């Protein structure tokens, strides 16, 4: 899920870069600094998750965890994901610095979207929280695959074909991520309930 350098056109790079810069600023502004270690922890989880591969038939996909970051951190997921991607680009040569904006957009925009959609469900807890967690985790993966297909339109691949392929290979990951997010959320609801409502825009801090 990392687009390589030189694969995309300038407007897409610039547009997504602007979104990520804006999202990072917003995320940092809304961040409750008492919870910064949570952000670092989840950022590390995201950073490492890309190295965990799940074999899906002939291809192997890696975990993303962007849904999990989204439902827990809200807008704070944007800086968390951006920093982790910068480090992946610098240390692992995944993606690259010029395509950082696109890669961050693909991962972070779904995180924010699932937070806005399912955040309240998850904070409600109980069964609702479980369903919200599963949907949040899986929808984030689906959106990432779709955003990736959209960003690849400018290169020579046709959208429908790419989107079909990307969504198909991500179906198992959607399921796995849904479960991971669901269990993480229910686990946190029991041991650290304040984490789930923590970085929300509600006037807590």
């Amino acid at each position, binding site marked *: 899920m*990392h687009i*390589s350098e030189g694969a995309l056109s300038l407007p897409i790079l610039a547009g997504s870069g602007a979104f990520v810069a804006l999202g990072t600023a917003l995320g940092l502004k809304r961040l409750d600094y008492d919870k910064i270690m949570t952000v*670092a922890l989840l950022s*590390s989880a995201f950073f490492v998750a890309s190295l965990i591969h799940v074999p899906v038939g002939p291809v192997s996909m890696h975990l993303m965890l962007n849904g999990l970051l989204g439902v827990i951190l809200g807008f704070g997921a944007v800086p968390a994901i951006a920093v982790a991607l910068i480090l992946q680009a610098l240390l692992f*040569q995944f993606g690259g610095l010029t395509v950082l904006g696109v890669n961050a957009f693909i991962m972070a925009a779904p995180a924010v979207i699932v937070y806005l959609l399912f955040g309240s469900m998850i904070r409600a807890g109980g069964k609702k929280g479980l369903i919200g967690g599963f949907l949040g985790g899986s929808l984030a993966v689906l959106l990432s695959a779709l955003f990736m297909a959209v960003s690849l339109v400018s290169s020579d691949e046709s959208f429908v074909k790419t989107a079909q392929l990307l969504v198909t290979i991500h179906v198992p990951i959607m399921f796995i991520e849904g479960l991971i997010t669901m269990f993480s959320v229910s686990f946190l609801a029991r041991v650290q309930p304040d984490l789930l409502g923590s970085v929300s825009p509600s006037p807590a801090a």
Partner: protein
Amino acid sequence: MIVQLFHKPKCFFMALAVLLFSLSCNNIVFAHKVVVFAYSSGAEIVVEGSFGGKRPAQKSQVSVFSDATGDLLLEGETDSKGLFRFSKPEKEGSLKVLLKSGQGHQAEWLLTKDLVQPVQNSSNTNNEKGQSTVTSHVQQAGSKHLAIDEHELSTLINQAVAKEIEPLKHMLHQQLNKGPGIIEIIGGIGWLFGIAGIAVYLKNRK
């Protein structure tokens, strides 16, 4: 703040478990980036694409450009082993090899002039000549003493060296392809917490 982290030991151990799990899968495939490597082998140039040491980039589109002019010289597709072979172009000059494996994964490799050139000269021009000299030597073989002319000798040496070196080049490609090691992974996590620490420090100083 760090004290706060230790108030959530379960969280911490969960992250640690994730980390250890990932490190235990050392042989996993890294589909994040595709790597392409091209080398000359006799009269051919071999392009090798992979996603990791052991997983070839199959059916990936290969385009070969002239580095000087940027003109597209030829195109092709890698086979099931991730290999694509083409005979060396007649014009000399550096070649740029671009491999696209789809979904935005692509990689480039520059074959410099000196790597493309020397073998080509001798093998291309000498193939026919070599044949004729060998037959003439066979005809003269009655004298037991086999004379080999210079051209023929250099062709044979080039072929032998190319054959010997090819596995080495293959190994080099696999080395290039190694995924991130434990040092990079732990270093990255250290960076993340370091950045968070600095952010807290700056915030608290105000």
